[in-house]
């Protein structure tokens, strides 16, 4: 049993299986607790009933790189390298997938990636116009024209001297 300790199989909602190093899978709290619950069993399969295969793949990709980078940059520089990778990682994910990924990561309880994905969604609000935000998230404007004009006036910060940083 000890020899198989370092691998675990994650099964997606479609039944697709992913063999993953324990070092990677242990970042997913749900996997950890499932394995703890069935300690002693030789069956190292964790069914992620509601997570689609494409999200399982994304999450594994993220944590595989996370673990590798951490090992490689033990002496320092890990955080910068991780940031670089996260940028690349997010570029290949579209708007709809981003939402699916948040839900998947939330279910798997993986704090580091949860923060990354939530921040990525937040970036679509930062520095964007109200119209862009509504469009991007598919939010219906439920203010009346008068209400909206009033709100914008009210919430305008009367700041001077904003710098460019």
């Amino acid at each position, binding site marked *: 049993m000890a020899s198989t300790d370092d691998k675990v199989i994650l099964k997606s909602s479609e039944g697709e299986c992913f063999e993953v190093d324990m070092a990677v899978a242990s970042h997913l709290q749900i996997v950890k607790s499932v394995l703890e619950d069935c300690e002693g069993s030789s069956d190292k399969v964790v069914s992620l009933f*509601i997570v689609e295969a494409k999200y399982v793949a994304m999450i594994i990709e993220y944590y595989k790189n996370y673990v590798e980078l951490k090992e490689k940059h033990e002496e320092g520089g890990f955080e910068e390298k991780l940031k670089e990778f996260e940028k690349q990682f997010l570029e290949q994910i579209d708007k*709809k997938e981003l*939402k699916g990924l*948040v*839900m998947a990561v*939330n*279910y798997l309880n993986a704090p580091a990636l*949860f*923060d990354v994905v*939530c*921040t990525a*969604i*937040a970036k679509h*609000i*930062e*520095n964007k116009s*109200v119209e862009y*935000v*509504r469009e991007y*998230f*598919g*939010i*219906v*404007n*439920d*203010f009346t024209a008068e209400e*909206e004009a009033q*709100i*914008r006036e*009210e*919430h*305008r*910060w*009367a*700041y*001077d*001297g*904003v*710098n460019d*940083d």
Partner: protein
Amino acid sequence: MVFQKKQGVNQLIPGLPDDMAVECLIRVPYQFHSCMKSVCLTWQSLISSPSFYQERRKSATPEQILCLVQPLPADMESPTTATGKEDDQRSRYALTIYNVTYNIWQRTKPVEGIPIFCQCLTFQSSGKILLLGGWDPTTLEPVPHVYILDMVGETAGKWRHGAPMKVARSFFACAVAGESSVYVAGGHDGQKNALRSAEVYNVDRDEWTTLPDMIEDRDESQGLAWEGDPRFWVVSGYGSESQGQFRSDAECYDPVTGSWSKVEEVWPFASNSPRGANATVNNKKRKNQWWWFLGGEQLRQLGERAENGDEKLTVSSVVGVPDWISGTNLSATVIGGATRNSKHRVFVMSGGGGGSSSLVCGECDGEGAFIVDVDEKTGSSKWNHVHTSPGFSKFPYSASYLSV
């Protein structure tokens, strides 16, 4: 069920459960929050609720903000009067909001401006900034005014008036103690009489209550209070007859007994005000610490100073200020509240013209600002330069910290 679809127009982000949408929205930087209120009704009510900011402090990284009462740069004074020569000698003030997290310098004031030398205090739990007293910018008479700027909630970003102090005063001691109280004591009135009167403001009830007088008159005294301790301390100051001769004693108001008690030999520098260059620090193990930021002559004068007994006001640390800091006054504000460990960050500004240190960038109007990393355990302090945007380099008369 995690994936349960809550269909309906009221979802914060369509297609995402609300608890996860909140997790995303709390990660948007503070400066965009007012804009987010204009997106839809559900966002408006979310961002307007104090719980949004509690959530933000809990699971996202809240932003660190310093509130500084600063004179406006010369070219921005009296913007409406091109002729206004008669105003030239008077400084106009505004409230600077320095966002430490994003390094953004901004300025705000009520339409009529803020009093000169007003005191700035903050309430973390309700996200409020208060400006108290000071001088009318035109008449230079002390005023009892209270201005409140809400940083969170429905009225965020708008200035309003609080109930005025019972006594118009300037150069008084003040501090926030407990959940919702502001203590104010001493200072001087319109006839330059040093005051011994004291009062307390309840910010939730918007109400001032007169306290018993202090034992002494104390103009230009320093107010102190510590998180988790209801007492209010007033250090040094001077009476009307001995102007500029700073007392060495302090007084402590205990709301439990409702009375003042005196503590001797607290402030050793008779020719210097204790205001500004000190900070109250708390950590889990060592509570009620009082730090002094001293340089040059004062630091040498101090030498070995015997500590007072337990129940008295004691200086727990003296942080040496490097000689290259060129300003004569110093304003020190601790960034962040009580910490779990021994490390603290303190924002320091002198308003000096800039010395020869390689730490100073040379692009600031003066020497800019500094953040000192102090480790209680090792006693080490590391000075880091903070670039100040043009027009933000003057000495902050009063400063306070808030996280949003």
